């Protein structure tokens, strides 16, 4: 894959506040990248800088071979969808979708054909004569997407496009956006604060916090191998345990000993990060290493899985969160107060 969009040392300050600090990022052609982070992390500002709606304080943006750093929005090549959709309420759906085509002086017939094609593409054929206010939120967002794609831009920018929708519609539409993107092969950047959304659609995720990029990686890398405590905390649930790492891959948590994959030449304090699914209740064979006992303190029912809070004196006073399947709880007759063994996989431990 070749590099399509390159951000080099992008900075943005508002007065004395630094919204973005030296952002370097490369996006490949046809890639789907998500900017993920809490509100105020600078992700939307970065998107708006790529769109030319904000001007960076410093740094360069290259799109293809073109330096677009100083170009006004109209001279850049992208389509954009906003959280508010920004559909023109007084124009019909067809006029909205064809808005950018009319200006290119395309023939009437070709505009009509293109609008039809786009409406079919987003799954709303035949809705051209209606007004935006007559459509549901999800339908409006599909129209906004069709409008952004009408002029066949090489870059698609999505600014929290799903956050105004209800949960079911959000899940459905994000998969539609993903499959549409793959069908068209258009390089896409989506801003979101929803980690599940980012994990489910992105080729790569850019995790941002306080104006800097914390980590860039595939969803699996971000989840499995968070580069910083912030990423580990922000993406997915995680247990943080205090321990001491000693030479010989020897980890002590509370009064328990664990084998781990990290070595050290001198004993030191560490924070151990463990995802709930990395603490197993089965299979555990007699004599397995890294096993400790705990008692169930609370069960939060989530459907087929339950989030279970476990107290384990042997690893300290902090409770531990693990996932247990509903079936397992039933089979074993487990309830609050039950005691059972848990096992930790050494290769899943993250140290900071």
């Amino acid at each position, binding site marked *: 894959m070749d590099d399509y969009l390159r951000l080099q040392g992008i*900075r943005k300050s508002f007065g004395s506040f630094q919204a973005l600090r030296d952002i370097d990022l490369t996006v490949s052609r046809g890639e789907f990248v998500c900017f993920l982070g809490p509100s105020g992390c600078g992700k939307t500002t970065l998107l708006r800088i790529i769109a*030319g709606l904000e001007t960076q*304080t410093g740094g360069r943006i290259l799109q293809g071979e073109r330096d677009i750093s100083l170009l006004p929005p*109209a001279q850049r090549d*992208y389509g*954009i969808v*906003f959280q508010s959709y920004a559909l023109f309420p007084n124009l019909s759906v067809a006029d909205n979708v064809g808005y950018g085509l009319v*200006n*290119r002086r395309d023939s009437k017939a070709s505009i009509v054909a293109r609008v039809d094609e786009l409406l079919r593409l987003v799954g709303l054929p035949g809705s051209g004569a209606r*007004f935006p206010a007559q459509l549901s939120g999800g339908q409006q967002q599909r129209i906004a997407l069709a409008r952004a794609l009408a002029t066949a831009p090489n870059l698609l920018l999505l600014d929290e496009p799903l956050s105004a929708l209800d949960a079911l519609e959000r899940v459905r539409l994000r998969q539609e956006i993903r499959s549409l993107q793959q069908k068209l092969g258009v390089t896409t950047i989506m801003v979101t604060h929803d980690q599940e959304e980012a994990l489910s659609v992105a080729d790569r995720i850019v995790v941002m916090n306080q104006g800097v990029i914390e980590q860039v990686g595939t969803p699996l890398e971000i989840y499995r191998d968070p580069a910083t405590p912030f990423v580990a905390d922000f993406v997915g649930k995680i247990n943080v345990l205090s321990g001491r790492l000693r030479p010989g891959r020897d980890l002590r948590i509370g009064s328990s000993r664990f084998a781990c994959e990290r070595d050290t030449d001198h004993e030191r304090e560490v924070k151990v990060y463990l995802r709930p699914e990395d603490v197993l209740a089965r299979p555990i064979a007699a004599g397995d290493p890294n096993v400790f006992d705990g008692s169930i303190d609370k069960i939060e029912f989530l459907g087929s899985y339950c989030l279970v809070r476990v107290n384990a004196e042997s690893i300290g006073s902090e409770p531990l969160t693990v996932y247990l399947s509903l079936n397992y709880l039933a089979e074993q007759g487990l309830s609050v107060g039950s005691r059972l063994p848990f096992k930790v996989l050494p290769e899943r431990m993250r140290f900071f």
Partner: protein
Amino acid sequence: MSAVLPLSVQRAVRQRSHWTDRVAHAALLAIVAALVVFLALPLATILAKAMQDSDEHFVGLANFASYLRTPALLQSFVNSVWVSLLVTAVAVPMAFCFAYALARSCIPGKGVFRTIALIPLLAPTLLSAISLIYWFGNQGVARGVIRALGFENIYGAPGVVVAECFYVFPHALMILVSALALADARLYEAARALGTSRRRTFFTITLPGAKYGLISAALVCFTLVMTDFGIPKVIGGDFNMLATDVFKLVIGQQDFQRGAVVGLLLLTPAVLTFGVDWLVQRKQTAMLSARAIPYAPSPSRGFDALMLAYACIVSALMLAMLGMAIFASLATYWPYNLTPTLKHYVLGLVDAEVGPAFTSSFQLAAGTAFFGTIVVFTGAYMLEKTRGMEALRPVVRMLAMLPMAVPGLVLGLGYIFFFNAPGNPLSGLYQTMTLLIVCTIVHFYTTGHLTAVTALKALDAEFEAVSASLKVPFFTTFRRVTLPICTPTLVDIARYFFVNAMTTISAVVFLYSPETKTASIAILRLDEAGEAGAAAACCILITAASTVATLLFMAAGAWIGRRTQAWRRPAKS
């Protein structure tokens, strides 16, 4: 990394401007230039004149000192202040009760009462003065009442106070109705649930909620009375006030220097009240949350009856004013021969100068409505929806708000000083209809501007960004999206300009020539000439014209609304 970068690397980056952005910048600059030339410079000239002697040498505050040493002029200042305070003290509570009846009671016919109370807005300000003379003047039908109350006659302070009350009533009413309409039903439900008495609810919820509206209304009333010219001119007799002094000094005695001093005196309270009002308004917006539930009054027999009686009395007074003007305009020879006749209308229109004056008024109103709406809306759009020239935008914003703080009389004075100056290349405009139109647009600029800004802010802020991404220039989006959505607002702004231009006197009185004299000015001249019947007829004609125009604008608005606002209606399913 960034912390170690030398400062020299961090030079400001500026995006290149697209040519369409430059079109917007040029338009913005043109608006600024126009507001500077037709607003800021004339006002600055007043300031300069106030500090010069008649040979244009700088004399500092000498003119102010000489003003203070002239007891007659000082007396006018005192008169203006106490009359304004008294009118405010009477009119605001009256308007509050009326607004309370409209917003918080279940009386029938609210629409009718509201319309009647707002009639004075459609009439020239001095209609109430002329009517008062017919009611209580030396030959008035009820002149005995005045004597019985211990006054010698209606001319002077008593007449001015009463007439001004009628003039400012609808202005205060509009502010108070919207203040009382902004009530959160949840507060009242909570109060009822806690068993709070009606009286205590009024003093702990209603009154504090309307506090800012009351302050606003009081400030508006005070400023309107302070700077009104027509009423003291007609019914003031030899009771002098600041506004009449300015006219006498500048037009009568050609004493521009002291005229400028009085002009500044008029400007000061207006600017002060404007500043206070602005602060108050900012607090007001923060008060009501989006989650508030609008208050709906519930019937209460005794209270509703009381409110109905009050509304009837006030409406009757309003109608008595208008009715007397109509009656007088139809009377053959007041008070000796009251046989109805159209003589005053016919004579006025044919013989006296009313006919041509009406043509001028229509030209002024149409010109102001047409060009004013274009300029105001374009200005607001450029300000709110385009990019770049960030340093200029606060300047435009301030200049657009300034006219609210400038009384018409002061604006007109500034126009005389500025455009009548021999060296001014624009002096050719002086006394032309063009300048009258420009002056009237500037005079009423702020309200139109705020209306336009409110409508524009309601539009999605990303329309322009989406257009730019689709390579559609902003003016295409302006034409295809912004204008069609905002047509109802445009009609509102045009109506506001039209009606105010029909009835305005204060700025225009300094600027007209015999060819451009408007109907509202003609009333003054007829009144001076003792043609009271014709003056009343002229008042009625203006009121009728404003009313017809308002109705036409409303009809046009409804028609345009049906044609352009189809998208607002839900789908037929």
